[in-house]
């Protein structure tokens, strides 16, 4: 009996500690992410999330943020080799997806595909456009109420010429839907993705 209690206590203490470590790590990572001003800062945040992910092994969120922050370096640094950045993002996202596939991981797939598409739109439209469209479809299947789906779709559509089925009007509808969903959206935990509302508000202004 005594031993059992001791073991249980030890286990409990150990677990308590690990959780705290993860939580404080994520907290620190998200703060670092929010404070990142340059592509280097962002890359450092990505590396930090990757370290958490590799240490934890069974949590998709740090891999997700590692992929997201890495993806952002491709936009923050105008000289970045977007294909190279995307390869790394895909690698990280793949590890997240191996643990859990959900609307947010699919949205990330779309964002990475679009980043690669922009390198040479005319000739990459077919390949990367198809990957992006598929990702949006999968995201909607996973959780049609995730507001980021319509945000990332709108971000793409506003840059597609109206003649190709894009444009401000199309984007506006999507952003409005996204904002409506942000109104009721509850992330599953404080560390689950909740970004996008500000971008959606800004995008709506750009659609006017």
């Amino acid at each position, binding site marked *: 009996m005594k031993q059992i209690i001791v073991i249980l206590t030890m286990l409990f203490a150990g677990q308590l500690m690990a959780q705290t470590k993860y939580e404080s790590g994520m907290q620190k990572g998200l703060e670092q992410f929010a404070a990142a001003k340059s592509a280097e800062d962002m890359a450092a945040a990505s590396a930090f999330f990757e370290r958490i992910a590799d240490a934890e092994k069974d949590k998709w969120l740090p891999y997700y943020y590692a992929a997201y922050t890495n993806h952002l370096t491709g936009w923050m640094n105008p000289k970045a080799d977007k294909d190279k950045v995307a*390869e790394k993002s895909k690698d990280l996202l793949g590890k997240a997806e191996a643990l859990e596939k959900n609307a947010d991981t699919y949205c990330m797939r779309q964002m990475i595909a679009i980043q690669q598409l922009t390198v040479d739109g005319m000739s990459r439209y077919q390949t990367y456009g198809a990957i992006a469209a598929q990702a949006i479809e999968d995201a909607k299947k996973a959780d049609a109420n995730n507001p980021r789906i319509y945000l990332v779709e709108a971000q793409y559509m506003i840059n597609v010429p109206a003649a190709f089925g894009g444009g401000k009007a199309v984007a506006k509808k999507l952003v409005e839907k996204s904002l409506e969903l942000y109104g009721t959206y509850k992330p599953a935990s404080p560390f689950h993705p909740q970004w996008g509302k500000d971008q959606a508000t800004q995008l709506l202004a750009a659609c006017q």
Partner: protein
Amino acid sequence: MFALSKQRAMKKWMVALLSIVPFLVQAQVKLTGSVKDQKGRILAGANIVVKGSYDGGVSDSTGHFSFKTYEKGKQVVVATNMGNKTMEQEIIIDTTPVINIDFVLKEEISELKAVTVTAGSFEAGDKKKAATVLSSLDVYTTGGANADISAVVKTLPGAQQVGEQEGLFVRGGAGYEAKQFIDGTLVNNPFLASVPDIASRGRFAPALFKGTIFSTGGYSALYGQALSSALIMESIDIPERSEVSASISALFWGAGLQKVAKNKKSSWGGNYGYTNLAAYFGIVKQKPEYFRMPQFHTADLNFRAKTKTGGMIKYYSTFGASDLGLRRSNIDDPALKNAFGLHNTNWYHNLSWRDNLGNGWKMNLGLGYSIDVNKIDQQIQNQQNQKITTGQPWIDNNNFNLNTRSDLSQFKAVFDKRLSGISVIRFGGEYMYFYNRSTYNNFKALLPDHFKALFSEADLYITNDLAAKVGARFEHSSLINKANIAPRLSLAYKTGKGAQMSIAYGEFYQKPENTYLYNTTNFGYSKATHYIANYIKNTTLQTFRIEAFYKKYDGLVKTYPVLNNAGAGDAKGIELFWRDKKTFSGLDYWISYSYLDTKRDFLNYPKELQPTFAANHTASFVMKRFISKINTGFNFTYSYATGRPYYNLQQSGAQYVIADQGKTIDYHNLGFSFNYLTSLGKAYAVIVGSVTNVLNSKQVFGYNYSYNGARKEAITPPAPQFFFLGVFLSWGVDRRQDAINNNL
């Protein structure tokens, strides 16, 4: 009892807590160091971490890192970097405040970074970044090419601007020396039926293919029976969406349906099109007099399905029927006419299955069957268009009926086994049964050939910077009852970022054309030996390429004094290519230049001569721009070639002599096309217009001579220019972008 155990438990609690406390209060240690690769190059952006902890850092632009850790004792430090192998080092953290630890990371051989063997081949498609020169979209938006794959390929270095017959004339090779392959199997009749002095279009719509590799030499052991060139086309997998489409122009109309299953695991579809040139010829005058207006029926069917193991089964079939008849004045007697009538039917089937067999094994199976039937009726007619006989054999030779049928049944199997890293060994075989039958007037002839080939090849990646492709091919034809073994070898070496050099060597064999085999099968193979060296510098939006080659021909077919393989020749040259999508925003252009020096003794040539299909200098300039504001793309292509030689070879006693010779005028062709995207009612629409030879330059492809050599006549296109205006529609989803692709 309870109190006691509670007390003891508390004690243990304290112990547990105490064991954590030192963990929290211990001093931190600083880890510093640098990360480099084996060549001593700095690796920035590498992630260094104390394994199992969150403590770590990233190497900066000087390759250095520095971070603090609270971990203690024996620890493992891990360095990871994209493109390099992960490295672990053990350290002991004690009281030393700063620990230095350096990493030298080995390079990881990856498909992304590794060089590709590129000597001799131009890859069009997004499959492999390093070799991509033309995307599939380019095929549709090349001005004046009218979506004919061969016409676009002619704007690449290595191909000649030959306009009087179909085929790709590559590096001093004749048109029949270039073969086309779809999903690995040979296409027996890639062009519409041949008409004298007019180049026919390719049979296949470019939209069928996701990638096209134009190889001008040194190609893989998987392909044989092509002395000069292989055009290797890979068909698309499951399309993105279902669609209904239609097209209308003065020349043709067509409709199509493509249905994709809900789970996107399979699709099927079909198209039908009808072309009739009567209305067009009524407006644009043609030089020949057409007594049967050209008409074409084309229909195709496809079925594609994904397998459970990530493979794909594809079936594609196309049916074509064409009919035309044209008259030209007879060169020996201007009072007479040559009337040529042609009816062709062609049915092509291709079934392929590629799959993963597990354990690094892959399989590619191909099954093909095609039938091609030609009914040719050639007459000498008088001014009243009645068939006559003159009594002069050199004129009366042109009174004949020729019916041909050529069938090809084939099976090809290729197996891939992945070796260590990304190296691959590949082997397989193919069996082809060619059945050719011809009836010339009432003279029947039959040419069946059981053709077998075995091949094996290895892609060896020695490092990321050095790769080799080594292969060999064995072939046997029952028709000529001869075998050959052809070795192939190429090497590629990366010289810098996006830059590489390649060399290639290969032997290529081809059996003689049926025309000669009908007379005798006592032939051997013709042989070409290729030596190629190239340099490529690639960035995402720019490509520079220079290539030099030497090609030696042996065993070319001679028709005089006897039919045999006594011919020979060679070809050498330098080719340049530059494509740039970067310098001018929104503008995409490419320039290609080919220098060719070739001579050959074949057919009835009295000695080694520059063949009539070879120009010394060929250049193309292709430019395209899409202006989003007006939803319109504008495309220009300018092609230039120096004059080609022509000869009048006359039999004089026991030999042929050159009775007359010369060079044609230089060739100029400026092609233009536009595509305007809009919508008509509920349909998305693309309006396409195109003109060839905008500047109306005079084009002469060669000369025909009368029997006595007294008269010579220039071979020119049937009309100096070709105009096209059409509308392509699609319903349901926005497919305008693809509509351009499908139909331009």
